[in-house]
């Protein structure tokens, strides 16, 4: 591939556990619309000449945006929040994990 993606500092900085995401892709169903590439906050996808590549799968945080917005259901992910206290709270109360976050940097 001739395309070289320039490494940004943020590419190197944060790395989380590998091979854990529940993200799956069914290339048969994909129309190459590119919406998943647009909504993904961690640049997991790359669309090249109408074909979709999962170039950065380990960066997936399972936010669910791609799967929900894919018009042909070519993507699946079990969505949730990566929050330890939410899981603990969920286990203690036998409830769904609930996240009490209030960071405001994102609009």
């Amino acid at each position, binding site marked *: 591939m001739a395309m070289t993606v320039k490494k940004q500092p943020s590419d190197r900085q944060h790395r989380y556990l590998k091979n854990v995401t529940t993200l799956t892709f069914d290339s048969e169903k994909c129309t190459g619309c590119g919406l998943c590439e647009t909504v993904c*906050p*961690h640049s997991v996808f790359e669309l090249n000449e109408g074909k979709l590549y999962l170039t950065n799968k380990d960066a997936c945080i399972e*936010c669910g945006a791609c799967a929900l917005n894919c018009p042909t259901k070519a993507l699946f992910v079990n969505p949730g929040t*990566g*929050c330890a206290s939410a899981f603990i709270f969920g286990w203690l109360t036998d409830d769904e994990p609930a996240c009490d976050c209030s960071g405001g940097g994102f609009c």
Partner: protein
Amino acid sequence: MENTYSDKESIANVPTSLTTCDMLGAWKVRLGIGRMNYTVNPGLYSVGNPHRESPVLVSANYKLTFDILRKNLADLDCWLLILDTKGVNVWCAAGKGTFGTDELVHRIDSVGLSKVVNHRNLILPQLGAPGINAHEITARTGFSVTYGPVRADDIQAYIAEGYNATREMRRVKFTFTDRLVLTPMELVPAVKMSLPIMGVMLITNQFAKRPFGKSDIAAYAGAILTGSVITPLLLPYIPGKAFAWKGLVTGLMGTICILGASKGFKKENRLMSAGQLLLFPAFSSFLALNFTGATTYTSPSGVKKEMKRALPLIIGAGAVGAAIVLGSHFLGKGKK
């Protein structure tokens, strides 16, 4: 706020500059003081002097989000459609589904948006996408959805580029400043959690042969600091990937330093120090694990995996460490 806006005068205009009060409020929220009710009313607002062709931006009714957004809209003429996310920021609300398809459809309808603007396009924050099905919005309301940039301070550039976000604008980051702003929210609950522990120490001191002293408190405070401040701040520079591991590394280093400085490795103090070396790094590790919720790059599957491994170790080491520390104080091992 359920009235329909038929004439422009009834739509509240919002200023794009923040007052001292807004900024003080933001800090109170970050420090966890009365942050529950920091909301604005959902509905339609105008910024500048918008007309029927002006863009419509959608956001959440968390006041901090609202303030950051309007601050970045200076010199723009646009409409703001604020969804009722129960005072939660866009990303978290999208994850919960309150910044969601149904709420957006309902809000478009309840403010009569199709009567206010001629076009049929909405600009949503990209981080709202986990809650929104763009195609369903179009099918149900006739409005099409465009996802804007992740950060509010890129909106002007995004609009200037003809509603085009660069790859950089689409990516969530987690800079030193981001992490710094979050540390008070980690520190405050950790300190609150410490009050009963301080109580146990005080009561123990009534009976113990060797009362808890300054060096013990220093080691304890050190663990809080390494787990909830130092680990978050130095996150990408601490070796390893798992948060519990990172907290353990900083916690061990912190405890060793404090013990070294307070004669902890002298022969008569060794048992108690061994207990502290189990207890405090475990505590630091636990606090660091809790920081996963504040980060922007942890997946639930990853956090679950790391918890399954780390939690039994943390609890085990913590319990054994606490028993040794309490025991050595009661029995008076190691007088200083």
